[in-house]
């Protein structure tokens, strides 16, 4: 174990612990942009810098191992100055349109500017010019808001393994890019949206969710994806009794199967719920046409016809197809209906199809 002092507090941590973790244990709220506990460390945004007594430079706490006897200041004058200047540098390359930004209220850059009172940038000059028009239906790539944390590149490689994007060029010209600058459609992208999940700003957003409600306006309901059998946890975003989006749940305790990772269907395929084609009324065939009727009529008709056929042809002439899409409870009731009510074991579903 290692003992060190952080903001005047004594902290003991296991060897190998990074300063970031140690600082958080000491109750210090360290801002980070490029840090993600599930991704390889980058150490590049430098927002998490802290002052370590006796060192010439500030230490990026996410990549600096705690050492015995260290004396650390997390909000010293130098640290605060560095963070402010970094924020100003980022603001200078960031198109500021928070009023129409999807991430307003859920943006790290905004949060930290607020926290450090950074209203404007002293370093404004050339405007951002990295926007990438990408005509895919899922992901908007507005690199005029990109802060180069590279989390998207790492998530693409280290969570999904699609390797669709990487860095192009160097220095100030560096930009996130597919091979040969093509659209995501022409790359190895599988539109899982893990990049959208990790983007701390509004550079990568879901086109499907755009304009339908900001994160803070929506209620979140944790549930399970309704597609394949993997059973990924996701969070539905709800506004005015409409599903308006899907969030990842990255906490393993709440999302044990996927830890936030999703596929294109899970992340972008929820909109069928709101489809105008949804059935909203029972239908009964009359004179060859399916026509809307009341529930009472539909249910009574169904019950009486089923009873009638049972009486005439026997329960063995009837069958129930239950569903691999509905809940356990509903499947239970469906087979109970077949067995206990109709009186047949002719119950099956599309397990094999």
């Amino acid at each position, binding site marked *: 174990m290692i003992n060190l002092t952080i903001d005047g507090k004594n902290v003991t941590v296991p060897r190998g612990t990074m300063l970031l973790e140690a600082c958080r244990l000491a109750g210090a709220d360290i801002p980070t942009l490029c840090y993600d506990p599930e991704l390889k460390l980058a150490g590049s945004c430098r927002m998490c810098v802290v002052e370590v007594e006796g060192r010439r430079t500030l230490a990026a706490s996410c990549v600096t191992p705690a050492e015995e006897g260290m004396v650390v200041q997390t909000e010293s004058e130098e640290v605060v100055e560095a963070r402010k200047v970094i924020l100003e540098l980022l603001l200078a390359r960031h198109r500021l349109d928070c009023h129409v930004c999807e991430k307003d209220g859920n943006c790290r850059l905004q949060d930290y500017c607020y926290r450090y009172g950074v209203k404007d940038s002293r370093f404004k000059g050339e405007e951002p010019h990295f926007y990438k028009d990408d005509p895919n239906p899922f992901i908007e790539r507005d690199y005029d808001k990109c802060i180069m944390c590279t989390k998207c590149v790492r998530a693409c490689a280290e969570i999904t393994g699609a390797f669709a994007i990487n860095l192009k060029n160097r220095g100030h010209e560096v930009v996130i890019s597919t091979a040969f600058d093509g659209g995501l459609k022409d790359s190895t992208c599988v539109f899982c949206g893990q990049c959208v999940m990790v983007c701390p700003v509004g550079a990568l957003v879901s086109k499907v969710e755009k304009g339908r409600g900001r994160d803070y306006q929506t209620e979140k309901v944790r549930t399970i994806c309704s597609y*394949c059998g993997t059973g990924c946890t996701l969070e539905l975003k*709800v506004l005015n009794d409409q599903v308006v989006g899907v969030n990842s749940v990255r906490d393993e305790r709440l999302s044990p199967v996927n830890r936030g990772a999703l596929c294109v*269907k899970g992340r972008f395929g929820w909109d*069928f719920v709101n489809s105008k084609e949804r059935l*909203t009324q029972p239908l009964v065939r009359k004179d060859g046409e399916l026509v809307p009727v009341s529930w009472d009529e539909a*249910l009574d008709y169904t019950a009486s016809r089923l009873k009638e056929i049972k009486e005439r042809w026997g329960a063995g002439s009837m*069958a129930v197809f239950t569903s691999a899409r*509905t809940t356990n409870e509903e499947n239970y009731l469906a087979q109970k209906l077949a067995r206990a009510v109709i009186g047949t074991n002719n119950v*099956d579903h599309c397990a094999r199809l």
Partner: protein
Amino acid sequence: MTNSIKDLEEEAEVIFLIGTNTTENHPVIGYKIRQNVLKRGAKLIVADPRRIELADIAEIYLPFKPGTDIVLLNAMMNVIIKEDLLDEEFIEKRTEGFEELKATVKKYTPEMAEAICGVPAEEIVKAARLYAKADKAAICYSMGVTQHSKGTDNVFAIANLAMLTGNIGKPGSGVNPLRGQNNVQGACDMGGLPDVYTGYQKVEVEENRIKFEKAWGVKLPPEKGLTLTEIINEAVKGNIKAIYIIGENPMLSDPDSRHVEEALDNLEFLVVQDIFLTETALKADVVLPGASFAEKDGTFTNTERRVQRVRKAIKPRGNAKPDWQILCEVASRMGYPMRYDSPEEIFEEIRSLTPSYAGITYERIEKSGIQWPCPHTNHLGTPILHKETFTRGLGKFHPVEYREAAEMPDEEYPLILTTGRSLYHYHTGTMTRRVAAIDQHRPHNEVEINPRTAETYNIKDGDMIKLSTRRGSIKLKAKVTENIKEGIVFTTFHFGEAAANHLTNANSLDPVAKIPEFKLAAAKIEKI
């Protein structure tokens, strides 16, 4: 799955994937397998007629001919036995029937397998060694293995291979079917099968029947029922008169659509309960609007047997109702009062009747699901099955022999058609075709053709072609790709307007599971 999804990411050293295009059909599991290879150096063996994405990072890729799974698997076992790479202790203590297996696989030499499967003998030997020598080797499979007229035999062969090398009942190993639909595991667990009640309690066992009769307060039929494909066949014959279909679209999902249509048209009464007016619902006498997953509470059970909470986020659309409420109404109006205040109350009944679910409660799975079996409320669930013993005690080797598929290519239909899914769509497209973004991205069906096969027919990438089998034909775009072997074509069944199941064969069912042979039909193509 005998093991957990996490094992595939963090435990397995070798993963043998057969008949599963994991990155397209179980994408998140696909990511995990890939990360295991990239970060932990796990080795993959991929056996698939199509060059699936994961083949690119596989140690060994075996592009075998559709329908020859058993030859391939038996040949691997042949090598393992010959080279003494088996787990003697496991075979001795945990299994029975080894001698019979040994006798059966003896003739399946790698050379013989090469002739039938079309993959080099030395690759089969390498695969056998890689799998057998690993401390922790997992097998994953999916419909590519099961959707054959010998699907059950294929699964036996896989189980044989796992038991032969002791790769079951320990972390990172196991026989792991990856299940295709969100709650297909749950539907089976809940007794949505003709031969079992919940938790696989057989209907033909009197003790079980008495238990359920007592709980439900009625007499129950003692014989097992018909399977879905049998029901369709019986409906064609006129022996089935009424079907109540909940959230299924057999018009697209079942083999030989014309045959299905004939069956449905032949019924006296068809009820369809769904969230959309599907191809099947259009045939119904009554259509009952159900609720989507976002509109109701309940539980789903995933492929690793994890029971997880589904939560209501919004109200059902219009006058639609949660499916559980509709079922209660129908039952009650048929004279069997069925009343529950909530899905939780139903779940309580389920767990009182289902030993493997007995310890699971809504409260316990509020945060994170529990993997059954979970016999009591202090039990943490079971991430790995068969740790100490198999359900039946000793694991039994079921030696299986190769038989040709029901329908082999001939002069008129010289190609093999195999079917499946794509990443972007789901099952019959009922949901994904109604997601604007997804349908915009992948609006059409395609058929994959090897460049040399395409050349034979003078077909170029993007050409419209006619794909036919003895059942019918569909028109769709050709996708010329090296990812599929010569003489084989592949298409998906998501698209009503170019429905693969117009083409598939409903007459060749697996004798045990009654699963149709979706993965193999004789076919021909022509440019139009």
